[in-house]
C-alpha cells in the first residue's frame, strides 16, 4: 500500500476516535466552545486528507459533517443527542470505508448511496443556507450565488474547443445534461496551502475538455518563481451545477461558471443590438422576432470567425450564406441576395469566412472588429491556447494588467462594461454583482484548504509495532546468548582448569547482564500502553447500548492511566466489550424496575484498572440485579455441563463461575437467564490466552463484580523447571501453587485416581509421565517421597508427580510453530542459556 495512504488510514482512525470522544464529552457539556472548535478542526483535517485520495464517498460525508460543525460552532444550531447520533453514524461509516480501503485498497461504489443519504441527513440540520460564508451548501437553487457567473461576452464556449469535443458536448446537451464553462483561477499562493489546482481541475465531475493557460507572460527562467501559481484552468463540463459547487467548494471564490446551451448564444443581450444592424431595416419585422433575428446573425458571425478545418469549411460557408439569404428575405431586402452570393463565391475560393464576415460587418457595423483586435493583444498571445484567438475573449476580463486595448470593449454595452471592470480588479473574486463573496467576509470566514497548517508538532514518535517486536526478539536472543556465559565460565573452570578466566567471564557476564536487563526493561516500556486505549470505546458503547435498551447507565472509568504491554491491552478490549455488553443487557434493570426496588434509576457501571505487583487488575462492577446461582445451576444441569452429583454439591460461589463454562452461551440461555451468559467462555478463553485469570462475584439484587488479572507483560515468563524421566520441562510459575514431597504411603488409590490428603484436603495426583505418555514410573527420592507440584486453575488443584524440582527461570516463551502448533500439551518453547530448548507445559490441558 502506498505509504501516504497508510499514514492516512492511521491518522483517520485516530481522528475518528477523537471525534467519538469529543462527541461524548459534548453530550455532557454541549456549550463548550473549545470542544466544538476541536471537533471542527478534526473533521476538517480528516476531510482535507480524504480529498487527497479518490474516496468521494468518504469526502462527501465528511464535507457534510464539516458543514454541520461549522454552523454548530457559529452557534446557529445547538447540540442535541440526535445530532450526536447522526454524527457518530457518519463517523462509523467513514470508519467502515477506512476498513474497506485497508483491506481492498478502494471503496466500493455501492457505498455511494449511503454516503449521499448520510450527507443529506447531516445537512438537514443546517437550517438556512449561509449566504455570507464560504461554507455554502450545494442546493441547486442556491448555487447561482455560489459561483460568480462568468460573462463570456459573445464568445460561445464551444467555439474554442476541438470539433470532436464540441459534438460530444452537443450530444450531452441533447440528453438534457447542462453544459457549463468553468474557469478556475487559483490563488497565486495556493501551492503553499498544499493545494494542487490541476488535480482539482482534472477531477472535475463531468469534465469533457480542459485546458491550462498562463495568466501572465513568462519571465525568463532565472526570475521564475515556480511556487507562485500563475496558471488558470478552463473546463467544459457536462454535469449538474450542484456537483460543481460541491467539487469546487473550497475555492468557490476562485471559480467562475457559465451555464449555457450549445444551441443558443449564451448571452443574447450581448449579441448584436438591434440598433447596430443599421444597414437593414430590422423594424420591418415584428418586435419579438427582432431579438431572434439578431441572435441568428450573431451566431453566423461567430461561426464565420471560427477557423474550421478545410474539410467542413465549404459546407459551413454554404450553410451560413443560406441563413443570411433567408434573413435578408425575412426583412424583405432582396438586394442583399447577389451580394451574399458574391461573398460566398469569394469565400469558397479563399476557403475562409472572411468575405462573408466583411459583408456582415457592412450591414451590422464593426464595433466587434475592434474587440477582435484586442483579442490579439500581447496578453492573449502568451496564452498558448490550442485553438484560436477567439478564446481569449473569454480570458480578457481576467487579465490583471489594465491595458489600453481594453478600452474599445468598454464601449460595447453596459453589461459588458460591468463585467470587464470586475475583471480588471486584480483580486480576482471581485464584488461581482452576481454574487461572489465580498472580500471582508472571505477573510473572516473559515480558512479552508490549509492542510499544511493543520499539523501540530508532536513529540511522540509513531513507530510500527513490527519494529518494536523485532527489538523485543533481539533482546530476547541477547538474554539467551548472555545466559550462555555462566556455562562457559563453568566449562573454563571444569574442563580447562583456568579459574582466572572463569572469574573474568563471570564478571563480564554480570555487566552484560545488567545492560541486557535494562535494555529489556526499556523495550518493554516502549511497548507499554495505558489501558485507556482499551477503555476508550466504552463511553460510546455504553451510551449506544443503554439508549437502545432504554436503560440509564452511568459509566465510570478509573485508573485509565494504568499501563500494560500492548498485546495485553489489546487482548483486553474484546473480552471487556463482551462483559460490558452483557452487563448492560442482563445486569442492569430498567429505570422503572430499579425505582420500584428502591435503587437509583440510573445504574452505575464501573470499570477500574489498577496495578498489583506484576499484574494488572481490571474490575468491572455493576449495581444491577446480580447472578442467581440457583438459576445458573439449573441451567448448567439442563445443558449437561454438570451432572446430578455436582448439582447437589456445588457451592453458590462455584455455581456462578459456571457462566464461564463453554456451552453455557446459547441463545436460549441468554433470553432466559437473568444474568450474564453471552459468550462468557469466549471471555475466559481470551483472558487465559494472555495468561490472565478471571473471577466473578455476585450478590443477587446488588450487582456483579468481574475481576480480571493479567500479567503486565507477556514477553518474559517465569517458569519452574521440573525433571521427569531424565528430561526437563518448564511450567509457568503463575499456575504453580506449591511444591511438596509426598511419601509413598500417603498416596491412596481412589477408584482409578491417585490422591493424597494435603492439609486436610483431598488432592488428586497425576504422574506427569502418564500425561506425557512416558512409560517410566515416577522416581521417589532416597526417603521414598515423591515430588509433587501443586498446580491450580479455575477448575481446582492438581498434584503433578514429577521426579525432581529444579530452579525457576525467566524465559522468553515462543509459540510452537508449524507442525507442532497442534500440540495442546505444550504452550510454547524457550531457549535456555546453554542453547537447549525447554518445552513449556500447558497445565490447563492436564485437568
Amino acid at each position, binding site marked *: 500500500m502506498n505509504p501516504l495512504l497508510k499514514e492516512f488510514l492511521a491518522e483517520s482512525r485516530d481522528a475518528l476516535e477523537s471525534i467519538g470522544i469529543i462527541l461524548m464529552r459534548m453530550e455532557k457539556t454541549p456549550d463548550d466552545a473549545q470542544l466544538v472548535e476541536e471537533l471542527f478542526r478534526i473533521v476538517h483535517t480528516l476531510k482535507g486528507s480524504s480529498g487527497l485520495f479518490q474516496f468521494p464517498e468518504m469526502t462527501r460525508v465528511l464535507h457534510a459533517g464539516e458543514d454541520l460543525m461549522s454552523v454548530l460552532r457559529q452557534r446557529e444550531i445547538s447540540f442535541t443527542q440526535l445530532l450526536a447520533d447522526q454524527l457518530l453514524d457518519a463517523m462509523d461509516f467513514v470508519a467502515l470505508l477506512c476498513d474497506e480501503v485497508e483491506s481492498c485498497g478502494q471503496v466500493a461504489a455501492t457505498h455511494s448511496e449511503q454516503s449521499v443519504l448520510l450527507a443529506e441527513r447531516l445537512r438537514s440540520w443546517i437550517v438556512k443556507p449561509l449566504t455570507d460564508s464560504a461554507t455554502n451548501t450545494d442546493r441547486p437553487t442556491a448555487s447561482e450565488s455560489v459561483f460568480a457567473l462568468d460573462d463570456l461576452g459573445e464568445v460561445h464556449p464551444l467555439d474554442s474547443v476541438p470539433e470532436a469535443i464540441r459534438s460530444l458536448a452537443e450530444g450531452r446537451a441533447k440528453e438534457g445534461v447542462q453544459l457549463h464553462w468553468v474557469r478556475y483561477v*487559483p490563488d497565486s499562493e495556493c*501551492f503553499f496551502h498544499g493545494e*494542487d*489546482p*490541476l*488535480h482539482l*481541475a*482534472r477531477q472535475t465531475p463531468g*469534465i469533457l*475538455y*480542459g*485546458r*491550462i*493557460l*498562463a495568466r501572465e507572460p*513568462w*519571465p525568463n*527562467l*532565472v526570475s*521564475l518563481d*515556480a*511556487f507562485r*501559481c*500563475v*496558471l488558470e484552468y478552463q473546463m467544459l463540463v457536462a454535469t449538474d451545477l450542484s456537483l460543481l459547487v460541491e467539487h469546487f467548494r473550497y475555492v468557490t471564490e476562485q471559480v467562475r461558471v457559465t451555464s449555457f446551451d450549445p444551441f443558443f448564444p449564451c448571452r443574447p443581450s450581448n449579441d448584436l443590438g438591434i440598433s447596430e444592424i443599421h444597414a437593414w431595416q430590422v423594424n420591418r419585422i415584428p418586435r419579438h422576432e427582432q431579438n431572434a433575428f439578431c441572435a441568428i446573425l450573431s451566431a453566423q458571425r461567430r461561426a464565420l470567425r471560427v477557423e474550421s478545418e478545410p474539410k467542413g469549411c465549404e459546407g459551413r460557408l454554404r450553410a451560413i450564406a443560406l441563413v443570411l439569404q433567408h434573413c435578408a428575405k425575412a426583412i424583405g431586402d432582396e438586394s442583399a441576395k447577389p451580394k451574399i452570393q458574391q461573398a460566398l463565391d469569394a469565400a469558397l475560393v479563399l476557403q475562409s469566412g472572411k468575405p462573408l464576415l466583411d459583408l456582415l460587418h457592412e450591414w451590422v457595423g464593426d464595433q466587434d472588429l475592434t474587440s477582435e483586435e484586442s483579442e490579439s493583444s500581447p496578453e492573449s498571445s502568451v496564452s*498558448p*491556447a*490550442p485553438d484560436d484567438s477567439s478564446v481569449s475573449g473569454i480570458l480578457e476580463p481576467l487579465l490583471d494588467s489594465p491595458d489600453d486595448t481594453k478600452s474599445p470593449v468598454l464601449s460595447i454595452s453596459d453589461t459588458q462594461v460591468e463585467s470587464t471592470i470586475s475583471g480588471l480588479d486584480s483580486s480576482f473574486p471581485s464584488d461581482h454583482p452576481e454574487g461572489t463573496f465580498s472580500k471582508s467576509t472571505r477573510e473572516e470566514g473559515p480558512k479552508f484548504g490549509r492542510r499544511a497548517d493543520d499539523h501540530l508538532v508532536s513529540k511522540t514518535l509513531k513507530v510500527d509495532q513490527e519494529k518494536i517486536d523485532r527489538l523485543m526478539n533481539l533482546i530476547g536472543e541477547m538474554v539467551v546468548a548472555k545466559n550462555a556465559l555462566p556455562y562457559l565460565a563453568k566449562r573454563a573452570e571444569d574442563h580447562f582448569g583456568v579459574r582466572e578466566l572463569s572469574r573474568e567471564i563471570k564478571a563480564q557476564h554480570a555487566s552484560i547482564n545488567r545492560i541486557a536487563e535494562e535494555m529489556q526493561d526499556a523495550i518493554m516500556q516502549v511497548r507499554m500502553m495505558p489501558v485507556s486505549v482499551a477503555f476508550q470505546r466504552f463511553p460510546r458503547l455504553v451510551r449506544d447500548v443503554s439508549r437502545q435498551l432504554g436503560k440509564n447507565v452511568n459509566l465510570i472509568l478509573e485508573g485509565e492511566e494504568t499501563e500494560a504491554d500492548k498485546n495485553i491491552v489489546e487482548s483486553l478490549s474484546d473480552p471487556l466489550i463482551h462483559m460490558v455488553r452483557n452487563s448492560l443487557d442482563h445486569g442492569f434493570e430498567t429505570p422503572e424496575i430499579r425505582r420500584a426496588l428502591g435503587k437509583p434509576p440510573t445504574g452505575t457501571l464501573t470499570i477500574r484498572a489498577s496495578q498489583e505487583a506484576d499484574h494488572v487488575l481490571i474490575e468491572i462492577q455493576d449495581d444491577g440485579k446480580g447472578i442467581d446461582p440457583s438459576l445458573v445451576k439449573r441451567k448448567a444441569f439442563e445443558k449437561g455441563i454438570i451432572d446430578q452429583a455436582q448439582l447437589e454439591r456445588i457451592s453458590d460461589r462455584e455455581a456462578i463461575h459456571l457462566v464461564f463454562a463453554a456451552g453455557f452461551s446459547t441463545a436460549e440461555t441468554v433470553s432466559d437467564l437473568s444474568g450474564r451468559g453471552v459468550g462468557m467462555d469466549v471471555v475466559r478463553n481470551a483472558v487465559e490466552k494472555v495468561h490472565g485469570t478471571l473471577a466473578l462475584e455476585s450478590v443477587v439484587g446488588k450487582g456483579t463484580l468481574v475481576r480480571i488479572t493479567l500479567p503486565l507483560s507477556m514477553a518474559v515468563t517465569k517458569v519452574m523447571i521440573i525433571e521427569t524421566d531424565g528430561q526437563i520441562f518448564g511450567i509457568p510459575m503463575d499456575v504453580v501453587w506449591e511444591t511438596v514431597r509426598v511419601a509413598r504411603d500417603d498416596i491412596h488409590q481412589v477408584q482409578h485416581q491417585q490422591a493424597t490428603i494435603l492439609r486436610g484436603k483431598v488432592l488428586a495426583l497425576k504422574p506427569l509421565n502418564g500425561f506425557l505418555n512416558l512409560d517410566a514410573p515416577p522416581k521417589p527420592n532416597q526417603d521414598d517421597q515423591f515430588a509433587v507440584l501443586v498446580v491450580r486453575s479455575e477448575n481446582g488443584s492438581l498434584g503433578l508427580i514429577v521426579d525432581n524440582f529444579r530452579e525457576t527461570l525467566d524465559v522468553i516463551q515462543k509459540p510452537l510453530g508449524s507442525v507442532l502448533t497442534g500440540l495442546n500439551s505444550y504452550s510454547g518453547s524457550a531457549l535456555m542459556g546453554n542453547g537447549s530448548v525447554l518445552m513449556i507445559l500447558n497445565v490447563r490441558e492436564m485437568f
Partner: protein
Amino acid sequence: MPIEYGDSTAIFREMVGVDEAEDLLQWLHNKAHPRIDLSECTHIHPANLQVLMAAATMIVAWPPDPTWRQWLESALPKTRGDL
C-alpha cells in the same frame, strides 16, 4: 524518483509532486536543449507544469491517457521531437 534526469532528457514518472519544481527549474536552466518524456507520467503538480511552460520545453513523449494528454497539450508546446 518522480523525475529521472538524464543527459538531455528528463523522464517524469507517475505522480510528480510540488517538491520537484525547484530541481526541475534548475535542470532546465542548465540544459541547452532539454527534452521531457511524459509517457509514464500520471500527474504533474502545476508548479512543475509552470516551469515546463515557462521554459517552453520540448516534450518528446506524451502520456497515453488521452484526457491527461489533452490537458498537457493545451499548456505545452506540441512539438514532437524525435527520440
